[in-house]
């Protein structure tokens, strides 16, 4: 499992998951721009995000609330969300 405190590693891991789950082509985990708008520019929709959220739940042990999907429109935001939730879990 990726160490949750290392945001750059989380970003690459999310990119790997997206490429694998959504069968994205012409991009690698290293070249996936973490700032690119997943909805407007990559064309990801709510069912895709739900699928990614399930894989991330397995990997990091956190729940991404359905109501939060609209806010998570790039990989960096997802990574920061995960990091925050993991930290909250440790404190809780």
């Amino acid at each position, binding site marked *: 499992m990726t160490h949750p405190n290392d945001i750059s590693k989380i970003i690459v891991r999310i990119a790997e998951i997206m490429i694998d789950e959504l069968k994205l082509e012409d991009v690698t985990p290293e070249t996936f721009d973490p700032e690119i708008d997943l909805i407007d520019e990559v064309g990801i*929709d709510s*069912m895709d995000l739900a699928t990614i959220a399930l894989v991330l739940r397995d990997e990091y042990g956190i*729940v991404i609330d*359905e109501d939060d999907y*609209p806010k998570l429109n790039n990989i960096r935001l997802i990574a920061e969300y995960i990091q925050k939730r993991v930290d909250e879990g440790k404190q809780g």
Partner: protein
Amino acid sequence: MQVQTHRVEGTQEKTWKFSDIIGDPVVEARWEKVRRYFFLRESTYDMTNRCNIRCDGCYYYEGAKQFAHENGNPANWRHLMKDEKARGITYVVLAGAEPSLAPELCQVCFEEMPLGAIASNGLRPIPGSINYRIHISVWGDDETSLRVRKAKDMLVRQIANYQGDPRAVFVYTFTRDNIDQIHGVIEVLARHRCKVTLNVFSSPVGYNGPLRHTLQSLSRTRKTMMALISQYPENLLFSPYSAVAHTHMVGLHGLYSCSYPRMNTSTAIGLGRSFRQYRADLTWDRGAACCVPDTDCNDCRHYAAGSAVVTARLFRHASDPDTFKSWLDYVDTYLAVWVMGYEKDVNLCDHMVAPPGHDLPED
């Protein structure tokens, strides 16, 4: 917040990973089968303001949309469909008032957008060149249809038009007073090898007439649905979870939080972003946009609404194997009902499972 847990009776709570749930090869195969259709993004269109019958409790003739000036110009419709495709719509539902009265417009839509469905009363055949699913509405036996829809011999005429047509799915809508009539109707439909799915009457805004369901009629409907699933596995496109979701005392919005624009202010993603309900004059109003406008949202149990709203709640159904299997059955059913060429498999979960965060409906 931590991952969800599920209590297995008599044991400690078990936490299910999604990878464990789809570790079952049968579940994984069904998941892979349905997820191929996650690209579907729908909008709906009133094709005309005309209808050849007038039914009690009709949604079209409620609210402002019935007064829209009809745009019958095929070129305008073709332009609209091109624009819809450009903004990401991949699936169209041609509905009010009666699309079979505007076949030239349906044809244009099909030429531009290959996936879709038409909601029809089935009294006038839709040309075979329009290869959309055709949903034929049935509201009871012919005696009831004559009373509620003012049309004679509806089932006989519907079957004559659509028997053996691979596009056709007969949609039986349970009202408060036609529950037992399904047995005779489905027997006739099965004899003619017709496909059938089930719907639950949902009141238009302000409707308090005799078709509106009560807790007792919802319970009776649910029991009837469960019996039919066992009796007609070859003909009936339905699942135990469909029965739960559509007959729960809490409506679809209360159970799943409706994601259509009318009840969802977010425009960021999903239906709130892309869904539009076009009137016959090709205008649309975000504040009124949902699959069956002018339905009382608190009483909404429409099959069309559930197809989008239950399906969208993938995450919350991935809590344990039975709940996820039930969701897969629901999605498998919805795809078979709505998508040409999609074949429904046997249900993975043969019993009723409670919607996430709710109890099973009371009998």
